[in-house]
Structures are given as structure tokens and as C-alpha cells.
């Protein structure tokens, strides 16, 4: 039995399920009790689960340490940030404490913490509300980092993340929340360390994750028109990276374009390319694109070109395959996730 729900609703259902199932669990963060419920992912959960769901003071560093304290006391903890940028205030707790607690206590204390980081984009959010920053978390040992791109993965991975004994950084892209997908009616879990081959193909491997998967799929529609058969991989897990799946694919296609959802410098894409080269030696053509290595301007007139959108992906693939571009892609303003969107967040 299947149903169609949005990514945001998937998160909601996963939280609802875990809040109900676990005796010791806390969902916390700015706005979790807000009627808007963190883009409808937590709406009214605090009414249903008294003493399990708490709005927070504007004190990210403090409440992250407090979350760690709960986890030490065997609580499962889910922390929510409406933008990844706000979590930087708690970076000390995440990097020095949470990521290392299990190790530092020589395995005596697990800290089951999920930190939800929402990536912003569009509608003029500008330099401080539209960064991705996945790779700085992936750099830190002790953290698992995931970034599902669809409703199915969102639900399964959120449940797995909460049930995981160790900290998981859970990236959600704001532009995914409204996108619908088919998921089983029954409860299910998903691996936190497996990439997903979206589409098989022999000509080139394209790897991406989070919202950029949507752009990759869009780009592929145009590639198909040119009879190009790309193998599309949704990374899903950024740490650990499921390098086996990627290696298998590139052994076949011999070419890869990594579409980074964040910036490329020391990014997830750099890690993937390095892993390929180290494992397969000199056999594969590798290329990466990602968010421009720059702060993002607010003005919609110029922000657009800063992201690896489908037209850019399309062009890059043609370049790698040395095919002359015959299609002209027409793009509308790309500062909104969909036509219904009226701002501001």
C-alpha cells in the first residue's frame, strides 16, 4: 500500500512515529511549537506529545549543549535549525563535544542526536540564509551526514537517524519540503550509508544529492532528448559516502560529473573525485560543479547563476561528452521553488 505525500510531511510523519514510539525522546528547536511548525514538519506535535517537544530560546549554542546532556542521559534528541547558518553558533558543541563524546568516553556513552539543518535558497535570502555547508560537517569524524532528496528517503532516513545510537546531521533543503513522492503506508527505515541509483545508463555517471538531485533529473530530461544515457546517482549519505556504488558505476561509464549541492572547494564533490582517483587510478574522466565559491547575492537578477541548476548541469555533461549543444534551455526566474511560492521564506 502506497501513498503520496510531501517531503515535509514525510519528516513530520517520521518525527510523529518516533515521538510516539520512543519513551525517552525530545524534539527541540526554534519554532517547533510555532503554528507554522518549521515549514509544517512539526505542526502541533507539541500538543500531541506533551513533555517531548519544546520550543527554544534564541540560544543555539546553549541548547545544543543541553541536547547533548539529554543524550548522555539516554534521551534520543532531535534538534532543528531553520537555516544551517544558525547552527554555526553551536559549532563548538557539535565538533568538539557531540562528534567526539562516544570516543572520548571510550565507548561508554553514546549520544543519539539528530541535528536537522535546513538549507535556504532563493527569494533574495542573500549571503546569510542560503549557504549549504555540508562539507564542513562531513569533515568531522564522529558525525554521520545525510541529505535525502525525496519524500521516501526523507521519512526512512529520519527514522533511521533518530534510531541511530550516534549523532547524525540531517540536511533538508527548503525547496524540497513541498515536493511530493510515493511512500509505503507502512512504517519503514532506510540505510544511512547507501547511495541510490535513480536511473541506469552507460554514457556518463552523474552524482548529486539533496535539492541538486531535482536539477540533475531536470537536466537529464534534456540529455535524453539527445539520446544521452546518463546513470543518475543520488548520494543520499554524505558521510560515509557509498563509494562502492559510485565506483561500480564509473567503471562502466568511465566518466563522472559530480554536482555538488554546496561549494566545491574542499567540498563533497572533491571528496568523491579523490576517492575515485585513489581507487581506480587513472581511468576515469572526473568533473565537478557546485555552488559558486562566493557569498550568494540577494538580488534575484544575479543569484541564479550561483547554483548548479539544470542548464549548467546539461552544458557540463555535453562538454564532458564533447557534444555540441543543440538544445536551448529556456529558464524562468529561479528564485522560487515552484509557481505557487509567494515568498518570503
Amino acid at each position, binding site marked *: 500500500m502506497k501513498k503520496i505525500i510531501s517531503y515535509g510531511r514525510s519528516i513530520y510523519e517520521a518525527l510523529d512515529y518516533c515521538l510516539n514510539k520512543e519513551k525517552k525522546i525530545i524534539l527541540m528547536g526554534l519554532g517547533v511549537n510555532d503554528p507554522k511548525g518549521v515549514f509544517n514538519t512539526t505542526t502541533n506535535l507539541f500538543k500531541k506529545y506533551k513533555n517531548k517537544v519544546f*520550543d*527554544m530560546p534564541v540560544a543555539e549554542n546553549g541548547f545544543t549543549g543541553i541536547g547533548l546532556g539529554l543524550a548522555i542521559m539516554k534521551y534520543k534528541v532531535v534538534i532543528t535549525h531553520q537555516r544551517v547558518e544558525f547552527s554555526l553558533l553551536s559549532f563548538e558543541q557539535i565538533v568538539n563535544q557531540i562528534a567526539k563524546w562516544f570516543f572520548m568516553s571510550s565507548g561508554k556513552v553514546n549520544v543519539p542526536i539528530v541535528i536537522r539543518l535546513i538549507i535556504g535558497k532563493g527569494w*533574495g535570502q*542573500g549571503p546569510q540564509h542560503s549557504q549549504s555547508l555540508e562539507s564542513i560537517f562531513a569533515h568531522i569524524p564522529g558525525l554521520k551526514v545525510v541529505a535525502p532528496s525525496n519524500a521516501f528517503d526523507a521519512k526512512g532516513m529520519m527514522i533511521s537517524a533518530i534510531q541511530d545510537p550516534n549523532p547524525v546531521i540531517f540536511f533538508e533543503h527548503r525547496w524540497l519540503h513541498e515536493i511530493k513522492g510515493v511512500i509505503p503506508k507502512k512504517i519503514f527505515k532506510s540505510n544511512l550509508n547507501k547511495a541510490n541509483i535513480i536511473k541506469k545508463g552507460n554514457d556518463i555517471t552523474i552524482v548529486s544529492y539533496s535539492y541538486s538531485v531535482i536539477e540533475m533529473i531536470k537536466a537529464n530530461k534534456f540529455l535524453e532528448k539527445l539520446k544521452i544515457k546518463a546513470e543518475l546517482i543520488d548520494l543520499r549519505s554524505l558521510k560515509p559516502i557509498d563509494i562502492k556504488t559510485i565506483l561500480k558505476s564509473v567503471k562502466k561509464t568511465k566518466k563522472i560529473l559530480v554536482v555538488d549541492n554546496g561549494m566545491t572547494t574542499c567540498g563533497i564533490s572533491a571528496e568523491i573525485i579523490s576517492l575515485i582517483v585513489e581507487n581506480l587510478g587513472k581511468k576515469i574522466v572526473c568533473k565537478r560543479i557546485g555552488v559558486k565559491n562566493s557569498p550568494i547575492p540577494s538580488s534575484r537578477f544575479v543569484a541564479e547563476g550561483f547554483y548548479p541548476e539544470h542548464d549548467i548541469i546539461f552544458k557540463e555533461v555535453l562538454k564532458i561528452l564533447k557534444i555540441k549543444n543543440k538544445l536551448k534551455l529556456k529558464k524562468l526566474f529561479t528564485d522560487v521553488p515552484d509557481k505557487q511560492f*509567494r515568498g518570503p521564506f
Partner: protein
Amino acid sequence: MKKNILKLFKKMLRIRMIEERISSNYKLQMMRCPVHLSIGQESIAVAICENLKDQDLLVTAHRSHAHYLGKGGNLKKMIAELHGKENGVAGGLGGSMHLLDLKKNIMAAVPIVGSTIAIGVGLAWANKLQGKKDITVIFFGDGATEEGIFLESLDFASLHNLRILFVCEDNKFSVNTPINQRQNPKRNLCKLSEGIGIKSYKLKDHDLMKVFLKSKKIINYIKNVSRPSLLDIDTYRYLEHCGPNSDDYLNYRNPKEVKKWKKNCQIEKYQNLLFKQKSTKLNDIKKSINKEIDNAFKYAYAGKKPKKIILENLIIKK
């Protein structure tokens, strides 16, 4: 005195009308950036900025329009900024959340809650190090006082005897989260701040003239004694936290509370005080403000898109 009140009223009215125009024009989908409107809270910005000199410095946060305009920030360039145009205050790169006007010493607005508090302290310290007597005003909300950087900043201001006026606009909400979910009722901001060694004052009413007179005194103290002070003022925003609309339908605020504050609307209060009904003088004032706003929007519309080449030059590469 009455002339003074009129002057302040006009400024307040102007800000209100600008914000209302932003609100009504927002649906045109041309100001495509988040806006945190100050409607309801204008009296504080106007009253305090009236006591400032041009050389005095100002920083603020996401809800910055009233502060920017109160301190004399350029209107046209602000509207252009909201439209993402090259002729905006930040070349369109910042949008509403990153206003600045260096000519008026409006040094920064930044939407990460609390961050400008420290930056403002740094500005004031620079002044002190150079022997300048100008003061720095730092605006922030009740939510920002919960950030650790608030303590760190006040501590430093106190340690170095900086000429700073910290202004907390306590509208009882952080986004839609009421203060009682964030702070114990026993918390007392002024006492807290006094514990840091900073003279602090509470106003439970954002009455235009009360704020004006109180802040005048405090600013004199700051200048004379060369010590920071804090002023904590109760106030209220009318519209949604971010965006152009009302959000009363969400029911996160007690309708009685909303009503109470709207009854205490400073625009209405001083309008009634200053003008008879159907005052032509008031109409003239409004007309001239409207014209100014029209022009500002025209200026914004006429602005060019930012050039990619300029952007390239702003990326630090070497």
C-alpha cells in the same frame, strides 16, 4: 515643544507609510527578499534617533527599516535594495536584511540574531581608541538578549567604558514563539544588565515622547560619564514576523494583547493630539510623503540589474 512633537510625528508617520507601501506592493512580486516590517514599533526608532547626531553610529538586526529611516538612511536606495537593483544601498546584494548607509553612519544590519551586538561594540571601541566622543546605538529584540553574544558584548562594553546605548525592543516574540516559552518570568533584563555593571532602564510603554525624553537623558549620561547604558522598551509589531501580511489568523498571539497594543498606536495617538479630524494639514503631510515614496519606487524600478562583472570583483580571490 509642540513643534518638536510634530516633527517627530511626521518622521514616525513617514516610516509607517513607507512600510505600508512595501507591504501593499510586496504582492507585485518585485521585492523578492524577506522583509521584517517595523509597523507598530516606529516610535522607538524615531524617538531615539532624534537624539543622535549624524556622526553617531548605528547597527541593527533583521527588523531594521525603522532604524535605517530614523537615522536618515537614504529612502530611494533602500527601496532599490529591496528590488535587488544595482542602485540599492548594497548594490542589491543584501536585500532588506542587509541595509547600510555609511553617509549616515548606519553601519550595518545583519539578520543573524545577536551578531550585530558585538559588531556594534567593536565600532564603539574603535571610536574610544581614537578619542572620539560619538556614541553607538545598538538595536536588537528580546530574542537577541537570549544569545550568548549578548552577555559577551555587554561585558566588553562595560569593561572598556564604551559609549554605547543598547536598545532592546521587547515585542514579546521571537518569530512566533512567545517570551514565556523562552524566558522565566523571573528574568529581568535590566537587573541582568546592571549585574554586568551597565546602567539600565525599563519603559513599559513605547510612547513617542516618553522614549524621546528618556533616551535623551540616557544619552547625556553616556556622553558625560563615558559608560554604556541599556534601555529596554516594551513594544509590539502589528504584522507577521516576516512578510507583508497580518498573521493574526495563526492565533499565536492573544487577540486581547494585540488589541491593547493597537489601541496604544503611537501614530494614532499623536495624530489625535496634533490634528483635528479631517485636518488638511495632515493630508498635505501625507501627500508629500506619498510623493516621496512614489519617487523612491520609481527610482527602484529604473535601477539596473547588478552587473555580473561587478560581482566578480567582489569575490576575494587574489
